[in-house]
């Protein structure tokens, strides 16, 4: 049975699905990270966020992160789901769940996965303000 669940979708992300995937009788804990769309950036009001992806490569990079997490930490299962397309304030662009026998590994693997995702997975967000749009991190 697979130990990893990786998904990029334009549908609403399903927290229950990510939770259910990592449940296991051998586990004493599940860590959950839910990313949410914030309403401001450096004091400026954000109206919505548009996520674009290089989907086939992004899936591969997410699989690499999940495999690395299983390798580095004594976790049992990991799910990494990411949304694409236009998201509104409060919507959920990313969910990561991890399960382990003891809680420490689940917490650490979850943090490792979101930190690495933000560095390596080819996904980009464009912030939409009332007076224009900006690619996040782009520094043009």
């Amino acid at each position, binding site marked *: 049975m697979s130990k990893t669940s990786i998904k990029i979708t334009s549908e609403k992300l399903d927290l229950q699905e990510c939770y259910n995937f990592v449940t296991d009788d051998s586990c004493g804990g599940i860590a959950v990270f839910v990313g949410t769309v914030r309403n401001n950036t450096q004091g400026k009001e954000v109206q919505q966020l548009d996520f674009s992806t290089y989907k086939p490569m992004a899936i591969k990079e997410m699989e690499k992160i999940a495999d690395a997490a299983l390798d580095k930490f004594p976790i049992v299962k990991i799910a990494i789901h990411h949304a694409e397309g236009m998201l509104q304030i409060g919507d959920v662009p990313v969910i990561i769940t991890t399960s382990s026998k003891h809680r420490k590994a689940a917490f650490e693997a979850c943090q490792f996965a979101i930190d690495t995702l933000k560095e390596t997975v080819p996904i980009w967000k464009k912030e939409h303000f009332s007076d224009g749009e900006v*690619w*996040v991190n782009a520094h043009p």
Partner: protein
Amino acid sequence: MNVQLLFFGITADLINTSSVTIELENSLLVKDFKELLLAKFPQLKNMQSYAIAINEVYATNQDIVKENDVVAIIPPVSGG
């Protein structure tokens, strides 16, 4: 030989397209390919940094761009 280029995020906006096929005389190191890219697409000079992926895998300057490769220009990512 032909190579397909993919642009994402801000680079797609700068170049005004997300995909284009270009012709190269021969295989090239990524390092040299980047020089050629800047000559062909001077808009990329506005980018402080970007990565290159060949066939959906991050490439280093010492990797080689070959015939029929799909080369993606990856601006700084901002997922999550």
